[in-house]
Structure formats: C-alpha cells, structure tokens
C-alpha cells in the first residue's frame, strides 16, 4: 500500500540533532528549487529582498532558521517558515519538493533520498538505492504497460471492427427501412380506402354498448395493472427493508419494537429467528435459517410462475386491437350458428390451393349473392378490412423494429468513440456488459461494466443491486487517463436505514479485467478496486502512465 513507508530506513529520528542551536553552516541556497536559484544572491550591500518584495533583510538572515519574510522565502532550507517547500536535489534520482513541515523533523523522508531534509549526519544518502528501485519499478510498470497496451490495442481494433459492423448494419437497415416504409404506405393506402368506405358503419358499431364496455374494461385493467405493479414494487422494497432489519439489527432484546418487527417478518416469510440461540454460538451468524429460506423460495417460485402466466395473459388482453375485435365480433354474431362448410373450407385446404380457392369462392359467393342465397356484402368487406389492418400493423411493427435497430446502431456508433462512454479510441467497447466477479467470503460482488453492480450473498438470500452505471470519474477532465480510473454505479437498492447503495470502482492498468478488492467505507457505499488492460496506455503516452491516471506524483511512485 505504502511502499515508501516500508522503505523507511531505520530512523535516527527522535535522536537529538547534532548541531547545537542555529547552525550557521547551512548554505544560502539549501532547499531552493532550481528555477529560483538565480534569485538567491545577495545585493551589493549584502542584503536580500524577500521574493514577494515585502522586506529587505540581511543576506545572513537567509537560511538562518528564523522566519523573517512574510512569504517565508528567506528559509528555503530550514523549515522555519510554515507553508513553504523544500527542494531536495536527490542527485542520482529525481529532484523533488517536500513541505516545510517535514524539514528537520527527525524523519528521513523517502522523497528526499539524499537526506538533505535533515541536519547533516542524520539521514544517509540513499538516492542510488532508491533511484535503482524506482527505475526497476518503472521498468516493471513499463513492461506491464507494454503487455497491457497490446491487449488494449486489440480492444481498439475490436472497436474499429465494431464500427465497421455498425456502419454496415446502418446501411443495410436503412435499405430495409425504405422497403418496409413502402410496404407500410401501400397497406396504409388500402386500409384507408377500405376504412373510408366503412368508416361511417364502423363509427356506428363503436357505439355498441359491448364495445364501449370493452374500452372501459381495458382502461380499468390498465389502471389496475399499474397499481398492481406499484404495489409489488413497494412490497419488494418493504421486504428489502425488513430483510435488512432482520440481518442488521442489534440483538437488543430490550427494544421490543425492533424485535416484534423482526419476528413478525420472520413469521410472514416463514423464516427461523435469525438470532435463535445456538445459531449464534461459536459464530455461525451467517447461515441460520437459510435452508428453510430456500424452501420458501420454491413456494415463491410457483407463485412467480403463476404471476408470469397472468402477466402474459394480461399482455395479450391489453394488446388486442379493439377495432378488429369489434369487426370479428360482428362477423361472429352474424354468422349462422352452424357455419357453412363453404365459408370455412379454407381450413381444410392446403395453403397452396388457397389463392385459387379464394378466386373461385369469390365468384361463387358473388353468384350466390346475386341469386340471394347468401346474405350481406358489408360483412365480407369488413372482414377483409380487418385482415388488411392486421397486415398493416405487422408491417408497421417490423418497420419500427428495423428503425429501432438502426437507431441503436447509430447510438452505439456514437457511444463507441464518445469520451464519456467507451473512450476516444473505443477501447472500452470490448468490455461493454462484461461481468467481473469477486468472492469476499460472505458475498460475491459482480460488476457488469457499463451496466450494473450487484452484491450476491454466498449463503443464499437476496441479491442487491449496488447501482447502475452512472459515469466515469466526475472530478477529472473527460478523455484523460484519470477520467477512466474511476467508474460510478449509483441508485442501487436502498438500504433500509441508509442511502441507495452505490459503487466507486477504481481501476488501474493490469493484464486482466478483474476486481481486486471490495470495501464498504461508509454504510452501503462500496469502493472496489480492479484492473483492466484498457487502462494500459502505450509507454510514453499519458501523464505518468500506470496507476490512478495522472493523479500520482513522482514521490508516490517510489
């Protein structure tokens, strides 16, 4: 975690510094950053002006371990002025600045490998060792990046292929759309014409009490269904809350309200009491009552299937085209009780013969009508109209699907190289909806990238959504490596006594797409760390390469 701490050499710290009182021996430019060196020269009168120009002091007062200047510039090398910084040359390694608070505090700062932050003799010069270690680490990181960036380029080529595929898909769907549009227009034209003929009649039929009642039923059913859905959602929410209460409450028996709520819920769900004696002995807190819970799940499963059937039936009921139904109804009511075989003969004919049959039928029927054997032309036309309507509706549906397909492809194409989605080079596209898992013992955490994060209890029980993909790092400039070092998943299942669950997923360059750690730093707010080759920029690209993208400074790389 903190390699620089581990590297701390045995600290002569807290041993008395060697020189007595203010050592006059400190060079005037000790601790001065290279860009300011030129300003640390005495005037001809052996005076010196504070860098902010506020004060002129004796040249001897520079680095005399006493803060004279308001801006603290007279003490670059002693730490006497709070809020200033100290420059370590670190010859053999990389020069760096440290805060004045760390100068002459008895600790050898690893950032200051030349030991210049402490009085001489306190800290050894470790720049060679630290520099070597740094370069070795850098080399390892570069190696990792080189390997990782190869995988990353395969992601990029995937994105390119994907782009091509999408573009082709768009082209072909566009062609298909134009065909389908024509078809829709043609059918629409027919329907319009037939319907304009029968419009008045249809209007009249729509006055039928049965039809109006049907509409009312439909409306009531729709409403009921949405109410039902809302109450199911609320029930699930309350169930989650109570599950959370049951698992999370303190076994504070003196609070009867909590205990009653838990016991009541266990009663409803048929669960064993979570803190039943024996269950807690020798720490088996997690698993009690799970078997039974499983059994309940089965019962619930049956219920769910019923629910599913009902949903399907409802869907069908609500999707019915009422006008067609009305016409169908008309036809049905007006048909003779024993349907003439003539009218139903199509059911017995092979499909190939139907067109001929229809032609024949048409002429026979019209003949019969003329003769007066068979009644009513209106019925015939209404039945045709209804069939055409069905064809139209089917054609419209296919058009809609194709258009949607096209829109989706266009959308995907847009996201593909959108900085805010799959990156400028589309390097993340390959990982779209890829699910990573991490087993932490009690739970398995799952992140389906760009989709949703979940927490799945290993010993059975409810899976919680930890949130849907919300954004990349909001604190960083889109497109920068730092931007892609963090993903937010938000608005997961609400905690019963806390916020909606959420995830911050911290990513660094690595050869695998994987979750490394999971930690709940605050209630219901999870911090995950992980790696992905998509973050491995080719060596030489990006600010500092590996790591949480550009946030690190040289000293942390040590």
């Amino acid at each position, binding site marked *: *975690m*903190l390699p620089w*701490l*581990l590297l*701390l050499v045995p*600290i002569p*710290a*807290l041993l*008395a*510094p060697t*020189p*007595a*009182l*203010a050592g006059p021996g400190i060079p005037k430019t000790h601790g001065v950053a290279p860009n300011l060196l030129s300003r640390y020269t005495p005037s001809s009168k052996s005076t010196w002006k504070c860098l902010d120009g506020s004060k002129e002091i004796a040249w001897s007062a520079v680095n*005399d*371990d*006493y803060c*004279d200047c308001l801006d603290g510039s007279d003490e670059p090398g002693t*730490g*006497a002025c*709070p809020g200033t910084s100290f420059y370590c040359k670190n010859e053999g390694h990389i020069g760096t600045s440290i*805060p*004045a*608070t*760390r100068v*002459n*505090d*008895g*600790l050898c700062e690893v950032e200051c490998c030349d030991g210049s932050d402490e009085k001489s003799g306190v800290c050894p010069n470790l720049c060679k060792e630290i520099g070597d270690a740094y370069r070795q680490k850098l080399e390892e990181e570069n190696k990792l990046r080189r390997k990782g960036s190869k995988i990353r380029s395969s992601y990029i080529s995937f994105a390119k292929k994907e782009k091509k595929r999408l573009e082709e898909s768009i082209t072909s769907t566009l062609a298909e759309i134009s065909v389908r549009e024509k078809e829709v227009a043609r059918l629409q034209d027919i329907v319009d014409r037939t319907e304009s003929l029968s419009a008045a009649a249809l209007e009249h039929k729509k006055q039928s009490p049965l039809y109006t009642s049907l509409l009312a039923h439909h409306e009531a059913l729709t409403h009921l269904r949405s109410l039902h859905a809302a109450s199911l959602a609320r029930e699930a929410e309350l169930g989650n*809350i109570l599950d959370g*209460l049951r698992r*999370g*409450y*303190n*076994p*504070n*028996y*003196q*609070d009867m*309200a*909590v205990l009653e*709520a838990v016991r009541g819920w266990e009663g409803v769900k048929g669960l064993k009491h979570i*803190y039943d*004696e024996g269950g*807690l*002995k*020798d*720490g088996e*807190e997690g698993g009690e009552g799970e078997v039974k819970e499983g059994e309940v799940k089965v019962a619930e499963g049956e219920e769910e299937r019923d629910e599913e059937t009902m949903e399907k039936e409802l869907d069908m009921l609500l999707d019915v085209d009422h006008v067609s139904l009305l016409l169908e109804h008309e036809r049905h009511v007006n048909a003779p009780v024993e349907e003439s075989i003539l009218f139903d003969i199509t059911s017995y004919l092979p499909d190939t013969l139907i067109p001929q049959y229809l032609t024949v039928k048409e002429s026979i029927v019209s003949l019969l009508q003329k003769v007066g054997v068979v009644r009513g032309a209106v019925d015939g036309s209404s039945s045709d109209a209804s069939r055409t309507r069905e064809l139209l509706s089917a054609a419209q549906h296919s058009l809609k699907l194709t258009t949607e397909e096209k829109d989706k492809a266009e959308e995907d194409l847009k996201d593909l190289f959108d900085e805010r989605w799959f990156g400028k080079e589309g390097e993340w596209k390959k990982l779209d909806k890829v699910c990573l898992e991490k087993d*932490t*013992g009690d739970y398995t955490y799952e992140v389906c990238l760009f989709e949703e994060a979940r927490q799945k209890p290993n010993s059975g029980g409810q899976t919680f959504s930890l949130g849907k993909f919300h954004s990349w790092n909001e604190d960083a400039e889109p497109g920068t490596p730092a931007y892609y070092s963090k993903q937010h998943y938000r608005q997961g299942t609400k905690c*019963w*006594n*806390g916020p909606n669950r959420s995830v911050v997923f911290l990513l660094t360059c690595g050869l695998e797409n994987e979750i490394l*750690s999971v*930690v*709940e*730093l*605050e*209630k219901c707010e999870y911090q995950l760390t992980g790696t992905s080759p998509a973050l491995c920029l080719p060596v030489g690209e990006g600010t500092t390469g590996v790591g949480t993208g550009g946030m690190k400074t040289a000293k942390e790389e040590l």
Partner: protein
Amino acid sequence: MRLSSLSGVLLLLTCLPSALALKAGDFKTCAQSGFCRRGRALAERANANAGAWTSPYSVDPSTLVIAPHEAQFTAGVKSSLYPDIKFGLDVRVHKDGVVRVRMDEVGGLRKRYDEAASWALIQQPEISSEIRWTAGKKDVRAVYGRKKEFEVVITFEPLRVTLLRNGKEQVVLNGQGLLHMEHFRTKEETPATAQVEGGEEGEQVVIKAENPRAWFEGESEDAYWDETFLSWTDSKPKGPESLSLDINFPNHGHVYGIPQRATHLDLPTTTGENPTFTDPYRLYNADVFEYLASSPMSLYGSIPLMHAHSPDSTVAIFNAIASETWIDVSHPTRSSTNTQWVSESGILDVFILPGPTPSDVFAQYATLTGAAPLPAHWALGYHQCRWNYVSTDDVRSVQKRFDEEDIPVDVFWLDIEYAEEHKYFIWDRKNFPDPVDMMKDVEAVGRKMVVIVDPHLKRSSNYPVYQEASELNVLVKPKNGEGEYEGWCWSGSSSWVDFFNPNSWDWWKGLFKTTVRDDGKFSWLDSTENVHVWNDMNEPSIFNGPEITMPKDSIHYGGWEHRDVHNINGMLFHNLTSQAVSTRSDPPKRPFVLTRSFYAGSQRFGAMWTGDNLGTWDHMAVGIYMVLANGVAGMTFAGSDVGGFFGNPEPEMLVRWYQVGAFNPFFRAHAHLDTKRREPFLLDEPYKSIVRDILRLRYSMLPVWYTAFHEGSLTGVPVLRPHYVMFPQDEAGFSIDDQYFVGSSGLLVKPVVQKGVTETSVYLPEDQVGIALVYYNYFTNYIYTGSAKGKNVTVPSALHQTPLLIRGGSIVSTRERPRRSSPLMKYDPFTLRVALDKSGNAKGDLYLDDGETYDYQQGNYIWREFVAGKNGKKGVKISSKDLGIAGRAGNEFEMSMESVRVEKIVVVGLGGKPTSVKLEAGGKELEWTYEPGVAADGKKEGEGSVLVIKDPGVGVGIDWVVVVS
C-alpha cells in the same frame, strides 16, 4: 458507540421527521425507583411538618470513645423509630482538615457495603494527630486551622454534623432531619391488611395497620422486597437498605459537580420553588442512547462530589457511595443550598472538604482520590476515530490522506469492527490481515493507535479470553450466585469479568503483553507497545438488561450484589486496563486508556469522553459544560466527540466543533457507523484549510496543555478552569460555563457553538487584585481593557476565528512549526508571547519531559518560569529560571534538549519603542522589530504594540535574562 439500528427503526415505524430520539422510557424516573420514592416522600413529610419535625437519630453520649492520639471518635447512634437497632458513628479529621463521617448499622442481620471509599481513595487518609475532639454534654467538637477558623460540631440529639468557618455554618449534615438508614429486616409474611397492586409503573404498595413510625417512614412499605420495571423484576433479597441524608450549605448559593449529566455547570434546582428539573439528579452509570442535551438524567459515569460556592468560601462534599443515588437540589434563598442524597445501599461515608478556596478544595480532593497523573504527551494531540476504519489498508489510506494534506494527527483509532465477531483482541483477519505491519506504518510517522477492548466477553468456545476467564471463575454470577451471568451486547451472548475479584487482576494485565506469556495464557501478540486502549460499554452496557445494564441482583466477588457496586464497576475495568498497558513494557510507560464509565478516582487511570453525543449545536454547547463539570470532579482529561457521534454535521458545524475540540483537554473526532465520512481532508475549501489551521493551533499550544496537565497532576486543579475557580469572588462569573481558562496560562477561550456567528460577547472577569484588567486577542494582539466590576467585550469570531484572549500578565510558550505529529516537534524551538499587564509585568511557566516514560519522577524534566518585570521606568526585563527540585541540573533530559532554543520572544503592550534589546549575559545586542500600538497601561483599546525579538540565542532549558530598554 451504540445501537446502530434504533434510529432507523423509529423512523420506519413511526415516520418521525427526525431519526434522533431518546427512549426515555428505558430509564427510571424517581417515581419508578422504590427507594427514591421513599426518600422524596420523607422529604415531603418533613417539609409538611417543618415546625415539628425532628430527626429520630441521636448519638448515645455514653458510648462516645475518643481516640487518644488522633482526631477520631466513635459513638453509638440510635433511632427512636427502632430502639433495638444499633448504629455506629465514626468521625475523623484528616491532616488537611477534611472531616470524614461514617455511620453503619452495627450487629444487623446483614452487612452494608462499606468498600466504596476503598476503591476511590488513593490511600488511607492520614488522620490528624494534632487536632483534638472535646466532648461536651450536648455535642462533641473540634477546632482547627491555622487561625483556628474551622470548627466541626457533632450534636448528639438529634444527630447533626456541622462544619463552621469563622463561626459561619459551611456544611450541615442532617440539619433537615432527612437522615434515614433503613436497617436490615426479615420479610414478614403477609401481615398486610390490604395489598394494592398498582401505580402506573408497577410500584407495589403494602399498607399496614396502625404504624407508629408512619410520621417518618410513611404508611406503606413501598417496594421493600421486590420491584418491577418494564419487563424486569429486581428480586431484592436483602430487602430495604436505602440511605437518605440531607446535606445543606446554608451560606453557599451555587453548587457544582456530581457528573455526569447534560446540564449547566452551576447545577439548576430539582426541587423547591419552580425547580428547573422535576426529577432529582441521578448517579447510576447508564448507556443512554441519544441522550438529551439538557436533562438531570444519569449518564455513563458518576462522581458523588459536589462543590458549594460563595464569594467568601468554597467547600465540597464527597459522598463515597457506589449504589444508585438520587440528589435533590434546591436554593431556599439565593445564597443557600439544600440537598438530599438518597442511595439504594451502602454505609454513610461522607467526606467534608472545608476549602475555603477552590484550589484548597481541589487539593483536598486530590489528597483523597489522587490527581490526574501526567498523561503521555502524544495523548494531547489530535485523535482521529470512526466506527469504523474497516481494514488495515483503510487505516493506511486515512494516514496517507492526512499527510498529503499536511494536517497534523497523532492517533488513529479502531472501534469494535476490527475484532472478529466482536471478540476483542482477536483481529478480523479478512479485513485486518496485517495488524502489526499497519501499526508499524503508523508508528513510522511518530503516531500511535488506540484499539477498543470492551468488557463483554463473547461466550464462545473459540475465544480464549472468555475461556480463560471462565476457567479462572472470575466472571460475574447471576442472582443465584452460581455459574456465569449471561447477557447480550455487541458480541451476542456475553459474560462480564468481575474485576472485584482479585484473581482476575494479574490475568487481565497479562492479556495486553505483546510477548508470549509464561503461563501459556492468551496475550496480545498481534499488537505493539504503541497500541493503547479504549474501554467502552463499561457501565456495563447490556442490551437486554434493565436500564441497558446489569441486573442489580447479580452477584460479585464477596457475595456483594451488583446494586452495591454498580457505579464503581466501570472504574475497576479502566483501572486494570490502565495498569495492564503501563506494565506491559519494561520499564513501564505512561498508559493511555479512554473510558466511558467512571467513578471518583477514575482520573488516575486515564481520559474520559462524554459518550455518544449528537451532531447538533445544543450538544456541542452542552459538551463544554460537561467537560467543565467532569474537571471539577477530578476527571480533567475529558472531551466530547468532535462532530457529534450521531448525524452528519454541516461543514460550518464541523469547523466550530473542531474549535471546541481544540480547546478540550481530550481532542478526538468520532462518528457513528451510519454517518458519512468526515475526516478533515474530505472537507471542501475554505473549511479544510480552516480545520488545518485549528489543528495546527492546537499543536502549537501543546506546551501550554502539557504544562497545565503537569500543574494539575501536582495540585488537582483541573486543566479547564471555570470562572468560579479562577475568580472565586466575582459573582458575575459563578454561573458562566461557556467560556473558561486553560490551566494557569492566562488563555481565556469562548468557543462558538451557534450557527452564523461573526462576533461573540466575552465576559472579562472582575479582578480582585486589580492589576491585570487587560486582555489581548491571541491572534491580533488587540487590547481589551477590563473593568473592576467585570465587563463584556465583543470579539470577532467569523468561522475561521475562535474567541481566544490572553490575560495581561501572562507569558505563553508555543511551538510554531507545524508538523505531522507531535513527537516530530520534540526538538522544535519555542516562541514566548509576553502579554504585559497594566504594571508591565507578566509570568508563565513551561514544563517539558520525554513525554512517555516515568523518568520525570527522577528529575528528568525541564520546568521553567518566565518572568517579565519592569526594567527602569519603561523597559522590561524578561528572565527564565528553574522551577524544578534542586540538584537536577544537567539531568539527562535537559542535556538531550540542549539544542532546543527559544527562537522568538514577542512582547505585546509596551508603552513605546525600545532603544535596545540585549542579552544580560555578555550584553549582546539582539535583532528586533517594533510595531507601535496601544500600550497595556493606557486606557485605550486597539491593536497593542508588538516587539518581536529575533532569536535571542538561548536554550529553553537554561537561565537567561533579556533586557529591553
């Protein structure tokens, strides 16, 4: 830390707009406590018959035995109510004039608990061999004091104890005739004519026929033999044994002390005309969930010490009793106070501290129970806590963020979640796989860790600590006296070590060793000597117990019931842990052990905090009063959780809370599991920088705090000093508890505890000496001139400003170089701030040592007095001299600090520009600058003149004189 789920449940079930609520019904009121009802009823009968009321207790003069060589006598006492029952009285005058009055039943059916004082006292007090008792016909009396100003009189009939000073009554015991020691009796089987079940709260009342004692005891035997509260029944096998005593202060109009509760320092009334509170103050250590910011209710700790104060005298009462106690306070007149103390069990053992000044009272109390010892220096730094830092890596990254932001911190804390299944000492390896490495990472920057160890032991076969305690048979027993008491706490089914059992002591101390134990028992190998300890939940808190604590009929060592020892229970746990932490290293080091529960004497074992406060402005304010009250009662190393334990304080509140915390002796930020993280580095600007500056201010003033603790360790005077302590004759200050002084540094602070404040009115006290009526703003050197009658001034206090003044006449030593932690400041130079008084004088002292060992007891320390005085008409002479015991010169510590210098001397309030500034020795002219401004001896207010002397080139540990001409 406490019940995490309750607030949420309340929210869920009742849809309260706020999730914060006290469940007052979990705790008894006086009306729900049998003996308290009896005690209050007794007072009511006495009040109703005020003219005709006489105490039935009297001394039998024929039994008086006066010790020949010391100031002690014994005598028999009888009660006219029960002529057959015998009581014994024992009165002593200690060497320092403290009077101890003891009374117990003699030859009774059972024995009353008489060991409370032995746990509280640091040693058996020395009885005066000079003071003599003189027996008369009606009384026995002793006169003492340098001017024979004190007289203590024990009147025989009725029994009455009076302490007088210069003929004026100071303290009177049984002056109202409310003394009543219920003797042990056997339960009579159904003598009752009628039994009434009832009373709303399940009180049980038995009415007897024609009771000749009814005028005193009442008609009924109210809750004598058992008592039910909510779902718990207290079996009370010993029957009634309560003790009532009235203690009056006929010439003192203010009383302080008897912590801990959330109310003002100057205790409001609970009885008499228009009382502020209607229930008596209660002393019964209790884990009160989301306690109210103003209430007479008992909290986590109890110290039965009360100061009574008037402009010409301060006295105190220490009532050494460990059972549940209720205290009624009233002021019959503005300048008098009556109190009644009703306790459930135990002997009468009252110490009367004669004063007559606040510092005398502190010294007398310290002689009895000990002063708070010098703490480890690092313990005065900033403590960062949270329930919970969830892993070793979490701790590392919190430390990293502090360092990246250059915000100082000394200690990282771990709450209960580090422990696997809350089995304390046992790390949850999943999240804390490398605890010792984590500690070493923290130590690398000079820091420490504090890890929690609670008293509830999980009853689990794979928990060695429980197993060993069980094998040693040192666990508290249930009411039948057999087996192990079992209750519920964080760890589920748990048992509690009975620290009254001496067999538990060495075993417990051994647990904290970081090396393998010879006896093969458990020791904490996964820790280092830089890990210190937090003892929480030691009231004890028991989730399924009556009033969230242990049933009173549980059995402790020696067969005593829990009711007899309840208020001491938490102190013993703290005591033993403190000894354990100190003695695990060789040579021993100063331990840091934080406790939530405490009793008289707990100050010897470590710090306390005010428990689970709420993140509200009210709680921020009352936290200050509570810390002051705890200090008055000896627990001076005290603080309240910065930010509030519950809730998510807005940034403004958090900043103000840091300002409060920076001026608390114990400075810790803590937060509940359900709260958002709020470490200072998470704040946005400007809040982050403001908090960094506050923390740096605290660190710069560590020399002031350490010196104040050092003084307190010698004198018993608290580190935070309320006005009545500093200015005992200034009546306007007697009720002030929102501003206070830090040690004897001269620093006066009034933290802002309200929203949206930009300026604050600060009271400048009347000064009896009449020379120091000038105060300086610490940050701007603005001079405020006081007035002989006391005066309020307006001090700027925008969010980044804390109203902090230096009293003219003080010299304050600071270290102005910010560091990451306090040990890294060890060799940093000092700045002296000389704030002149009107006559051009000032002084202050500075104490330093290695900060963690006991080497200072061998003279290894630096203790300087800095004095500024007139040099000629306008000049000033500033000198440094040794205050330590002679013969220490050149001690090891002093030598090790040779290189540490005074880098700067700032003199504010000079009358004019000096002509020269020289070191007296050698006459070397020093560099200096002078900003003209208002002088201390003038009448004007405004920015004071400032003389800055650069690097006088003197070490902090040596004698020197700087002459300003």
